[in-house]
């Protein structure tokens, strides 16, 4: 058994919220009792209904906020604030529009005080890795959405973090670009050996990418179940989506999510008088 790279121990996160109608301040529990190990070099996909605290989990890992209780360990050490041992890729790319693709990739190295020449070499290396060799001097507004996300991935890899945290990175892309990038990401993962925690609300995406899929409950977010994805679904040559095994695993994840989606949407569905199951199906398909 490989050792845990990231370890969540009973992590709980509460936010203070203003009370209704000027009432006393209350607290809102986003995450509750999250316990989870991410193994070294593992690709773990995390799915959950919207609003289950996925992004809060990522903020905690990124060191942007601290847990209300419990602790998060990276290589056995408690996470204290942001650092370059973790790279984050955001859904909206978060590229700096005044920097070219190469300069964006250089950002983390620039911050770290790496010399200009070395920076340029590394930027070129990682742009090559994500398939954007000829686009080093383009500004973000001159790139398509898929290319921007490639630059963002290269930027996060450039300073050589231990783990890569990805917050629904392909959600804003069209279906074809998304599939291409999923394949590319798996290739990059295999060639770099990074530990990747990939947050998504897409069941297909989770099954295609993850070695394991962690399903979260609706608010407050907990880990409901961990599902191992059989290796045959990570074949580099076959169309894994057409394998019978894919359908089985997909259905398993879908069933686990359905109840949570129902719970999350319950009040709305009842109020609308809609059919809960149909609604859940629709939501879980995204």
């Amino acid at each position: 058994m490989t050792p845990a790279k990231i370890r969540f121990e009973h992590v709980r996160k509460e936010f203070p919220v203003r009370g209704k109608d000027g009432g006393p301040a209350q607290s809102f529990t986003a995450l509750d009792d999250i316990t989870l190990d991410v193994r070294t070099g593992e690709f773990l996909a995390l799915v959950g209904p919207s609003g289950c605290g996925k992004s809060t989990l990522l903020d905690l890992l990124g060191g942007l906020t601290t847990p209300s209780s419990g602790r998060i360990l990276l290589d056995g050490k408690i996470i204290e604030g942001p650092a370059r041992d973790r790279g984050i890729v955001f859904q909206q790319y978060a590229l700096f529009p005044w920097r070219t693709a190469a300069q964006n990739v250089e950002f983390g190295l620039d911050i770290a005080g790496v010399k200009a020449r070395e920076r340029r070499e590394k930027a070129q290396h990682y742009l090559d890795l994500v398939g954007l060799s000829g686009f080093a001097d383009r500004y973000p507004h001159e790139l398509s959405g898929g290319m921007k996300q490639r630059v963002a991935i290269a930027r996060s890899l450039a300073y050589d973090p231990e783990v890569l945290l990805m917050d629904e990175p392909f959600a804003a892309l069209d279906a074809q670009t998304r599939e291409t990038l999923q394949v590319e990401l798996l290739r990059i993962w295999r060639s770099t050996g990074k530990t990747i925690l990939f947050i998504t609300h897409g069941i297909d995406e989770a099954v295609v990418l993850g070695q394991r899929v962690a399903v979260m409950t609706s608010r407050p977010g907990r880990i409901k179940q961990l599902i191992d994805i059989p290796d045959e679904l990570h074949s580099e040559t076959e169309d894994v989506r057409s394998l019978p095994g894919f359908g089985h695993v997909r259905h398993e994840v879908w069933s686990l999510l359905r109840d949570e989606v129902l719970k999350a949407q319950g009040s709305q569905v009842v109020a609308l008088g809609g059919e809960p199951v149909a609604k859940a199906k629709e939501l879980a398909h995204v």
Partner: protein
Amino acid sequence: MSNLEILTLLELAEGSPRDRARQRAGVVVAARGSLVRWFGIIGQRCLLLLLFLAVWETAPRLGLIDVTFLPPFSEVIAAGWQLAQSGELYDDVAASLLRALSGFLIAIVLFVPLGVLTGWYARLGDLLNQIIEIARNTAPLALLPVFILLLGIGELSKVTMVIYSCAWPLLLNTIAAVRQVDPLLIKSARTMGATPSQLFRKVILPASLPTIFVGIRLASASAMLVLVASEMVGAKSGLGFLIINSQYSFLIPQMYFGILGITVIGLAFNAILEALERRLMRWKAPAV
């Protein structure tokens, strides 16, 4: 890389096949037409201006307007030529430029950093907000007598007026610029371990530059406006002085030439700022 991806890249680099065919067919026509079109565009842009100057030249000559109050354009230029030869024009332009530029630059040096600080530290912003609101709603020209009383009619009062009038557009736009920086960019830089000072230099400043530039351009317009007005009230040189003095002395062509001088300086200021803006902000997507 998948085939699909490569195809997309190729299209980006070369244009789709259909585009290319169209381009080739168009080359011949374009070469012949480009010269004509070029003159056409220049003509189109200048058409109204030429028309305006023509009316200015002919209307007084045809007696449509009293020549005393609106001399023909050529006479205004001739009067300007005389002013230039006597050296009077040089003195006035130099005086105005010196006041406008020094006031404008001092204002930028003082108020852009202050605006950045005010935008960044919310508490400082709350503190200054009321004062800024009061001061910016007090028209600078209304304060002209106060400045003259306190600082005399020399250079100091005029430069101070310019600084004062530039302060508000600079301050307000800079504060807004810093506050509007995309929080995601800040978050992204923080996760990469940026220190507060790095965050400031490498994210906040470049991200706010476009909006700060809006303030700089507004300030330059305001600088000219206030300068001319203050030169009209109490000065012995400058274009504002030239205009008002010519009017008092009934040298009407000279007066019009002074006005033209203001226009040219304003246009030049704007052109320089635009060029600077284009240079600094090459990364911006062209406005559609």
